[in-house]
């Protein structure tokens, strides 16, 4: 992933309008940048603390669970990566977006990251399959996938999407937005009902 031509200076008045935009859309949390395992823990912790104390513990746990899957997907699959060296250790940082907001009676848990276009079909096939399933079918699919050897092209257990779908109270939503001829921005939204 190439650094896009963002040479224009960021104007301070734009920053305020960005904040206003997020506020108008009831975004509770918004982060765009490199994600690491430590950040997963910290963001999870902040979200747990910042969501209304009155919220059901189960609802918070579901949001947390979706966030962890989304952030670990960014770590594994985002093609926006930067590598470096710290001491003797090589590190790789993957970038993506994580957001939590309020949508009516639901919390929305959103992630976004850049992917290669060649992975689009695989992602949408898997998501469409899960989205089309009822709860019972999702459960069976989850149990089957859990026993399956991971897809050779997949770096994870292949369970992230189904886990999110089962924690969500409405079907997952996703979108690919073209970035350049080889890449797209993959955004994913899970809604978690405020009432468990």
């Amino acid at each position, binding site marked *: 992933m190439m650094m896009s031509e963002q040479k224009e200076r960021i104007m301070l008045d734009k920053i305020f309008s960005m904040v206003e935009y997020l506020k108008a859309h009831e975004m509770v949390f918004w982060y765009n940048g490199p994600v690491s395992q430590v950040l997963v823990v910290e963001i999870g912790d902040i979200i747990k603390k910042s969501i209304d104390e009155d919220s059901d513990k189960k609802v918070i746990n579901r949001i947390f669970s979706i966030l962890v899957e989304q952030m670990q997907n960014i770590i594994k699959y985002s093609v926006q990566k930067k590598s470096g060296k710290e001491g003797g250790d090589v590190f790789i940082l993957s970038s993506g977006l994580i957001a939590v907001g309020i949508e009516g009676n639901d919390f929305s848990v959103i992630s976004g990251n850049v992917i290669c276009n060649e992975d689009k079909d695989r992602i949408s096939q898997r998501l469409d399959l899960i989205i089309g399933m009822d709860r019972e079918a999702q459960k069976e699919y989850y149990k089957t996938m859990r026993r399956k050897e991971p897809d050779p092209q997949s770096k994870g257990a292949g369970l992230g999407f189904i886990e999110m779908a089962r*924690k969500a109270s409405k079907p997952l939503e996703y979108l690919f937005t073209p970035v350049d001829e080889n890449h797209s921005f993959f955004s994913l939204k899970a809604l978690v009902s405020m009432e468990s």
Partner: protein
Amino acid sequence: MDDLIINPTRFTPGIYFYFSKHTLEISGESYPENTSEFYTPIFELLRNYLAGITDQVVTVTLYLTYFNSSSSKILINLFDLLEESASESKNITVNWLYKEGDTDAREFGEEFAEDLEFLAFKLVCVEN
């Protein structure tokens, strides 16, 4: 065989394998970036332990307040390992602990239990 004790971190559970007392416990949260890196050496020891036991009463306690999807896959591997020993008439009981009111955690336990035949799998509610 020496006991295996690993203290919990913010994203890996505590491992309390008292092989000498035949009580094994995993408790805490489990969502490491690389699950097999964390669990493979632990399961290696467990495999050796299971191969060496005969009619001892073994109690395995799992109290995971959160685990990610790849840890869920690891748990299946753990239960398969225990199930195999149980099918050889070894006396193994798993206690799946969940917090009172946490129906999601209870359901996870139920779903694991559905896949097991020989292993005694008990759901235990922990009162708040």
